[in-house]
């Protein structure tokens, strides 16, 4: 236990602290931009990022993973904030945390295995497209200077990393161009034009909402969506960090940890969040392996907020829009085009369906859920088909069965048998099949009985070990049928 805590916190502390500082710097522009997507004051996203990162460093299941305010959750809550205001967002965040803890206790991490790649790819693509589209209103039809600032931002974020790797390029764009704005005062909108900003340490508050069923009715759908989206992105990110560090992590502990982090965040005036793929990759790339890196990211972010708070309102919007364009390009899965052509048609369909549902409903959670339902249906359809191959030679007929024989597939099997034949030797070969339940055994009994009514001789052969076991226990077939 103590050994493990030491390993998860204090392995290579220097490297991990530096990695955490780099992440904190990279988090600032994103936390502000995601707040703007959600329609709240940038402080709501910055506080959330600080609190979630610090709490999750203790409660999470995946050391070195970074969690903070994210685009995925921000996109889900936009309508809630627009219609009911930020206090309802805080209440929804608290409820989101409670739902996630519950799901974690119910060991939902295991259920993640049932989210197929097609849905995951659809999820990241939909997320990327929505983040991109949310930027358009900050880019087009504002002023010529807006385009200039956006172009310079994009140049910096794509060219600077080729020259200097250690300093996050988005932060360089933010500092250089905000300084340029303060000097030249071009015609662009700033963060201050969108909302008030206050500089203070987050304090404990109870969201100012009426504690009624009506409130619950408003926030519950959002909390559920936030919880699902948060867990999907968190557990996907955990798998990415697992692979990047060749280590394993506890997904159920991560689910509970995410819940605790969001629960606490809501009480400190922060919006909900989850793990971030991009930031976690930055962290791991900088050599981080421990919880200390995540803790440092949160703590250093708070330090930066206090020091730089006054400047945040001066940040020109096109810089943030440019950084978000970069984030969306990085989030999008560019292998999808090949996937859409080469993957099985049902997988490609589910991937595209997931994207389309999200784009039409603006709800990432709905896309994931419907995507999972469709892929489950496709799987059930595929598995409930039994192929029966027939060969006739003189007075003997040979049936070869291929597939899974169970309650859902017996109809398809029986329809392929011809019960009008008579006075033949019939061989039923199950070498390519598996009998799963009593319905399967019953169906075979029925088939044998029907054949025998027309004076056929029936032999059942090549049952595999499992199938033979349930046939022996449940079937009326006798040794003679099973002779061969």
């Amino acid at each position, binding site marked *: 236990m103590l050994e493990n805590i030491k390993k998860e916190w204090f392995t290579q502390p220097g490297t991990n602290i530096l990695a955490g500082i780099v992440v904190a710097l990279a988090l600032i522009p994103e936390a502000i931009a995601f707040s703007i997507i959600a329609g709240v004051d940038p402080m709501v996203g910055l506080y959330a990022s600080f609190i979630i990162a610090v709490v999750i460093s203790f409660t999470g299941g995946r050391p070195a993973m970074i969690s903070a305010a994210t685009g995925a959750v921000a996109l889900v809550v936009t309508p809630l904030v627009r219609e009911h205001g930020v206090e309802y967002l805080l209440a929804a965040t608290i409820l989101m945390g409670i739902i996630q803890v519950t799901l974690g206790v119910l060991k939902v991490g295991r259920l993640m*295995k049932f989210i197929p*790649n097609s849905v*995951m*790819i659809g999820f*990241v693509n939909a997320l990327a497209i929505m983040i991109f589209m949310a930027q358009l209103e900050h880019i087009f039809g504002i002023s010529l200077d807006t385009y200039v600032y956006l172009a310079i931002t994009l140049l910096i974020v794509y060219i600077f990393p*080729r020259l200097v790797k250690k300093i996050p390029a988005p932060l360089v764009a933010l500092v250089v161009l905000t300084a340029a704005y303060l000097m030249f005062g071009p015609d662009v909108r700033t963060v201050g034009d969108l909302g008030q900003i206050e500089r203070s340490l987050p304090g404990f508050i109870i969201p100012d909402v009426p504690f009624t069923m009506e409130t619950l009715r408003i926030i519950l759908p959002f909390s559920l969506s936030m919880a699902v989206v948060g867990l999907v992105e968190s557990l*996907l990110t955990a*798998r*990415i960090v697992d*692979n*990047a*560090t*060749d280590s394993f992590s506890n997904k159920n502990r991560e689910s509970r940890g995410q819940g605790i982090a969001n629960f606490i965040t809501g009480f400190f005036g922060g919006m909900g969040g989850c793990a971030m*793929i991009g930031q976690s*990759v930055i962290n*791991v*790339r900088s050599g981080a392996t421990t919880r200390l890196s995540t803790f440092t990211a949160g703590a250093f972010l708070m330090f930066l907020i206090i020091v730089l708070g006054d400047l945040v309102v001066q940040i020109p919007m096109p810089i943030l829009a440019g950084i978000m364009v970069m984030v969306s390009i990085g989030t999008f*899965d560019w*292998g999808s085009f090949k*996937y859409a052509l080469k993957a099985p048609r049902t997988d490609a369909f589910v991937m595209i369906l997931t994207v389309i549902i999200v784009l039409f409903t603006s709800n990432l959670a709905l896309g994931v859920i419907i995507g999972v339902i469709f892929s489950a249906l496709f799987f059930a359809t595929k598995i409930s088909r039994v192929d029966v191959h027939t060969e006739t030679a003189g007075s003997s007929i040979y049936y070869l069965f291929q597939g899974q024989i169970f309650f859902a597939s017996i109809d398809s099997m029986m329809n392929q048998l011809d019960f009008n034949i008579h006075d033949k030797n019939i061989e039923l070969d199950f070498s390519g099949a598996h009998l799963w339940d009593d319905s399967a055994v019953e169906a075979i009994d029925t088939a044998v009985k029907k054949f025998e009514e027309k004076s056929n001789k029936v032999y059942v052969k090549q049952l595999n070990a499992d199938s033979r076991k349930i046939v022996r226990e449940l079937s009326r077939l006798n040794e003679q049928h099973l002779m061969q």
Partner: protein
Amino acid sequence: MYKTLLLAADGSENSFRAAEESMNFIDENTRVTILNVIGTDDVKNEVLHGSQSGNVTARRKEKLSRILDFYEENGITYEVVFEHGSPADTVVNVANNGAFDALVLGTRGLNNFQEMMLGSVSHKAAKRVTIPVLIVK
């Protein structure tokens, strides 16, 4: 003939050609180390497009299978090493810090676009590796 050889391979056509070419410099007494660098950004693809269950290492070896089969057919002793990091820096580090007689690699990897954006691995290796380097076109 070299006693030890480092082959940097990403599973591309070029890296296979590098393995073929290396046959001119090695025999059954040579120990070949095949180095595959897993970029941090590649891991996202690995998770989104890979199978969810099963052994990661087995899947990573899968993409090098052509090279492994080729060496096996020719009776060459090899070991496979996976490293995380930026391809160019990692290849340079491993080549300079191991006891290798030479480094062999292909001119261009799996992704032309990335090479253009990030600078070529073979170019950096030629510049910074201190042992003999064979770049195969």
